[in-house]
């Protein structure tokens, strides 16, 4: 029974966990975290297992209620969705392990249980977005995830409700635009199923309604993935949200928008449509390139570590957008590989920021010095490794996705984008070495009594372990990237862009 239902399992596990957690943890609050971990572990196991099943026997279709696709809702487990669900569920599992102490420290006790329930709801939405094969179902999951996310942001710092409200307004407009695009598409084609639409669209042709539909959908996903200049909600939301929220939404949230963009552009409309008929892919790539430079430059000016990471996220999402916009096989490989890489790197960096906040009481860059490093050597080491990966030094993962992106720009002969990638690597180096230099070289400040803060106050094991696991994975996956790319990623490439590696 389980094998045939596997595509629907991951979102449903999270959905049921979201319902069970408030009931089960009514008396015993500690249960909330345990149940959340159990659900995340189960979903991660299912989605990793799904990867192997997809590799073995190809794409799976799951029909809800047994209704055949154009009428009913269909879940599609293909190499791309299997890969993305595995990435988000594994990241969520690691971050949730870490979240136990930060949630306990940052949130009042009565909010712990609803917090974990909302995390589960958000993950259910994200998994649903990735797995569904139906455009309207995607909208519903998009809103489920977003609504949960607004709540998760609003429980943070004093200013977090304002950030959450701004995100809510912008996010609602983004969702509305997406829905409008779906409406135009439905009116002109009579279908909401992605595979069905792909077959119908060539016959419908490139009328103005179809072009408007595509533009609205791209706009909607652009807002959700914080594509420049639609990123206005992101910096405040990441900065003021609780550590657990920002380390969940930074690696996972924006990638879902990127995934939606990829699905719509290449798997429904097709490469020819989005590059020749309507040059939307080019628009996306130029916006992404602007976002890369903007995010990197703004990141250099920030004093708060979380805010710097937020601007860095805008830049990194730009890499993914650039890879999508290049619309060639190498660019897409780079983009999807960067979804994995940036997920791991950003999760690791936000966990480090959380460790600093809990142990040092702050995460201001200007207040970091070698005293902080002496107190938290492992956390600092993890930060350094993740920072090197962000800059793109081999053999860390960050190098390989940038390598594919750079090859993609060369294949398109878009030298401007190649220059942007190289320049932004330098800018990355500038703003990360600013922190690394402080951690390793700046002499420790003495406190009021003239003595250095002594002793190691490294983060607790439940926080340190996830951070180190993520940091180690940066090297391991970097070394294994050929396996992932050749074994899995080349198989997702949309029709018209397939490649076979020698």
């Amino acid at each position, binding site marked *: 029974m389980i094998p045939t239902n596997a595509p629907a399992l991951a979102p449903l596990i999270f959905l049921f966990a979201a319902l069970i957690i408030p009931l089960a943890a009514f008396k015993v609050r500690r249960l909330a975290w345990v149940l959340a971990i159990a659900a995340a572990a189960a979903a991660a196991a299912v989605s990793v297992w799904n990867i192997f099943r997809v590799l073995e026997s190809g794409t799976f279709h799951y029909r809800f209620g047994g209704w055949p696709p154009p009428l009913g809702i269909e879940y599609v487990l293909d190499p791309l969705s299997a890969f993305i669900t595995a990435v988000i569920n594994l990241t969520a599992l690691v971050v949730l392990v870490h979240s136990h102490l930060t949630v306990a420290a940052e949130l009042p006790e009565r909010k712990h249980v609803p917090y974990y329930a909302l995390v589960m709801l958000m993950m259910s939405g994200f998994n649903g977005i990735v797995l569904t094969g139906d455009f*309207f179902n995607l*909208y*519903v999951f998009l*809103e489920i995830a977003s*609504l949960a996310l*607004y*709540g998760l942001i*609003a429980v943070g*710092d*004093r*200013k977090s*409700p*304002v950030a*959450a*409200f701004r995100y*809510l*307004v912008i996010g*609602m*407009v983004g*969702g*509305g635009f997406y*829905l*409008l695009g779906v*409406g135009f598409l*439905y*009116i002109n084609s009579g279908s909401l199923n992605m595979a069905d639409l792909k077959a119908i669209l060539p016959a419908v042709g490139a009328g103005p309604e179809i072009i408007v539909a595509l533009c609205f959908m791209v706009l909607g996903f652009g807002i959700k993935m914080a594509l420049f200049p639609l990123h206005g909600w992101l910096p405040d939301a990441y900065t003021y949200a609780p550590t657990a929220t920002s380390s969940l939404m930074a690696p996972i949230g924006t990638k879902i928008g990127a995934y939606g963009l990829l699905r719509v552009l290449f798997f429904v409309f097709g490469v020819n449509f989005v590059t020749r008929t309507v040059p939307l892919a080019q628009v996306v790539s130029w916006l992404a390139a602007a976002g890369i430079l903007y995010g990197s430059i703004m990141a250099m000016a920030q004093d*708060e570590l979380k805010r710097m990471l937020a601007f860095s996220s805008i830049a990194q999402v730009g890499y993914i957008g650039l890879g999508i916009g290049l619309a060639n096989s190498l660019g897409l490989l780079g983009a999807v590989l960067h979804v994995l890489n940036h997920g791991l790197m950003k999760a690791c960096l936000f966990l480090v920021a959380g460790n600093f906040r809990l142990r040092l009481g702050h995460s201001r860059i200007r207040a970091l010095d070698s005293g902080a490093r002496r107190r938290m050597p492992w956390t600092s080491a993890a930060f350094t490794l993740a920072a090197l990966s962000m800059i793109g030094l081999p053999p860390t993962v960050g190098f390989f996705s940038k390598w594919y992106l750079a090859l993609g720009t060369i294949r398109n002969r878009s030298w401007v984008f190649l220059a942007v990638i190289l320049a932004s690597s330098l800018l990355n180096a500038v703003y990360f070495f600013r922190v690394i230099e402080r951690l390793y070289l700046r002499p420790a400040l003495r406190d009021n009594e003239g003595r250095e803060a002594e002793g190691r106050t490294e983060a607790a094991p439940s926080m340190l372990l996830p951070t180190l696991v993520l940091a180690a994975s940066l090297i391991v996956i970097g070394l294994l990237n050929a396996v992932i790319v050749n074994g899995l990623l080349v198989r997702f490439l949309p029709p018209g862009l397939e490649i076979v590696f020698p």
Partner: protein
Amino acid sequence: MRDFLVGHYFYWFIFLLMTIGLAGIILKRNLIKKVIGMSILQVAIILFFVASASKWDATVPILDPALGAADVTKYINPLPHCLMLTAIVVGVATSGVAFALIIMIWRRFRTLDENELLEKLKHDPD
């Protein structure tokens, strides 16, 4: 041209409603008025779907023995209505969350005016 304008008259009004909603979100300084703008935008999208389902000389999509089930032009399309039921629920939930956030903002900053709020945030220590 005249056909285009008159034949799509319903969509022109929806377009107008949508513009009013977006203008409310962008131009109004009061957070509650922004939420009102959001609701107007949502209603415009809902009407867009519902309007797309209608047909001339067609009836509600409930099987009528006199009309039979063979001729689909006798019934309007029920699917957009079903979709919009979900969208209405989503809209209500969004407004609810928005109002909850507004209450939080009011309790902390004692203002709902965007300019005042930004001013207070600037001077507010983290």
